[in-house]
């Protein structure tokens, strides 16, 4: 009786135990990696972190170890990423709603659009940078905050759009029927019902894209350029934190390299703060979601 059944139960229990151990190990690895990264950056950043680092722009010889700060890159990165995220959102939300409410599940157009977005998602950011650069030259623009915003928006768009698309797909069909039956147009159902139901997921998609945008160096290298001043207008070149890290880390001076870590710490902190703010907002948006 308990021969084969008992053996197989033992095997099943072992398999279960093995999987649990594996899952625990993965979780530990993730947390450890995060702590190591944060720890290393902070450890190296502390000597260089100061108020003037955050509140001043680079003075002459900053990259040789003289005084100044990275205010130019902090402001540049924030303006660039916020502008690009806003622009990408304006493109992503309507397209994702269109794919889910105006197109049938079996629609070929929708399938091809999703496929294109997935391909775009995978395109390396240096390619966006190069593409932005060519377009810029063709239009006779120079490296500027505006060109950077446009390029980073292009980089963020497929990420944000597909993330929003995926959460909209999970909205129950019956919800659409409920809104339809009240005489709502598709537009009203899309913007008044679907966006609310998917709000927490939409927010996650926006944050994901923002994080990718503010952390990217390759796409802004040629398009936003770099400047020691805070950009005064959209036409001015703008410094960014990833490039500030890159340039400072590339110098042979240890004290400048420390500043690179300080810049990295600032960048990480910005992303952390934005994620936390997003989570708080997400919890609020979650209140009304129909489970």
């Amino acid at each position, binding site marked *: 009786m308990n021969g084969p059944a008992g053996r197989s139960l033992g095997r099943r229990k072992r398999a279960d135990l093995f999987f649990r151990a594996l899952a625990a190990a993965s979780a530990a690895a993730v947390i450890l990696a995060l702590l190591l990264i944060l720890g290393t950056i902070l450890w190296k950043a502390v000597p260089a972190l100061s108020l003037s680092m955050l509140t001043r722009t680079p003075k002459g010889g900053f990259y040789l170890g003289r005084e100044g700060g990275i205010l130019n890159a902090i402001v540049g990165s924030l303006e660039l990423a916020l502008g690009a995220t806003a622009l990408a959102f304006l493109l992503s939300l309507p397209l994702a709603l269109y794919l889910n409410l105006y197109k049938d599940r079996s629609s070929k157009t929708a399938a091809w659009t999703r496929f294109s977005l997935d391909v775009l998602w995978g395109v390396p950011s240096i390619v966006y940078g190069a593409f932005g650069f060519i377009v810029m030259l063709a239009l006779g623009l120079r490296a500027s905050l505006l060109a950077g915003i446009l390029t980073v928006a292009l980089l963020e768009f497929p990420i944000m759009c597909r993330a929003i698309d995926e959460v909209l797909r999970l909205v129950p069909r019956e919800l659409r*029927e*409920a809104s*339809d039956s*009240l005489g*709502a147009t598709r537009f009203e159902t899309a913007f008044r019902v679907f966006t609310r139901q998917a709000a927490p997921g939409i927010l996650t998609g926006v944050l994901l894209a923002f994080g990718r945008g503010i952390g990217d160096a390759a796409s802004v290298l040629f398009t936003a350029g770099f400047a020691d001043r805070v950009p005064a207008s959209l036409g001015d070149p703008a410094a960014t934190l990833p490039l500030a890290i890159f340039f400072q880390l590339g110098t042979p001076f240890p004290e400048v390299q420390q500043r690179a870590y300080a810049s990295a710490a600032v960048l990480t902190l910005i992303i952390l703060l934005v994620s936390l703010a997003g989570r708080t907002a997400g919890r609020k948006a979650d209140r009304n979601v129909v489970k």
Partner: protein
Amino acid sequence: MANGEAPIRVRNLSVFYGGLQVLRDVSLDIPAKRITVIVGPSGCGKTTLLKSLNRLLDAAEGVRVRGQVLVDGEDIYAPRTEVTRVRKKMGLLSQKPQVLPMSIYENVAYGPRIHGLRSRKDLDGRVERYLRLAGLWDEVRDRLREPASALSVGQQQRLCLARGLAVEPEIILGDEPTSALDPPSSQNVERRLMELKRDYTVVVVTHILRQARRIADHLAFLFLGELVEQGPAAEVFAGPRDPRTRAYLSGEIS
């Protein structure tokens, strides 16, 4: 009941899902200010028939409709018919109550808002009036700002009723509206429907024969996509003419 007075007249309606024919040449008159109950075994096309009345089938893929549905004399499948106007004439209760992802108040105000009601005072009035009519006001008057999803399923179904009533329709459609509810909530919804027939035309789909006996004024029996028999409920229950109806009512087909 003369034909001319019937607010909904279905004429030779056939519905196909892809290659599958779900409704076969259905003709049906739905009398005003009565409860018409459509009964039949599951999969017979009851829900399809109900949803064809306010063109909710449009949202589904690969659906073809042949024939006519006349609402107040207007063919709702005619090319120029404005679908949102057709739907505004009918409130729908679905099998599982589906509240909108917003507060209790906003759920009821949603319909009036999209149809152009703006003033706070008017909206407040409408919300209260229809929550009362749906028998929910006393339970929610102090928590109108709470998410609708926090309500019990029974309350949610009455909220859906209030929401449907708030666009001031002439007709109420119920697609097995009590199937997800516990017995007391079911009774509550049934009671509401009995009260509402004074002012509204009600069409309810159900597979529960006892429910049909309790609430039906007019009965239609649908079997394998075909409308087998229809007439005043008392007559059909007392003396079904078609052998299939007789078999269904006696519980031989279910």
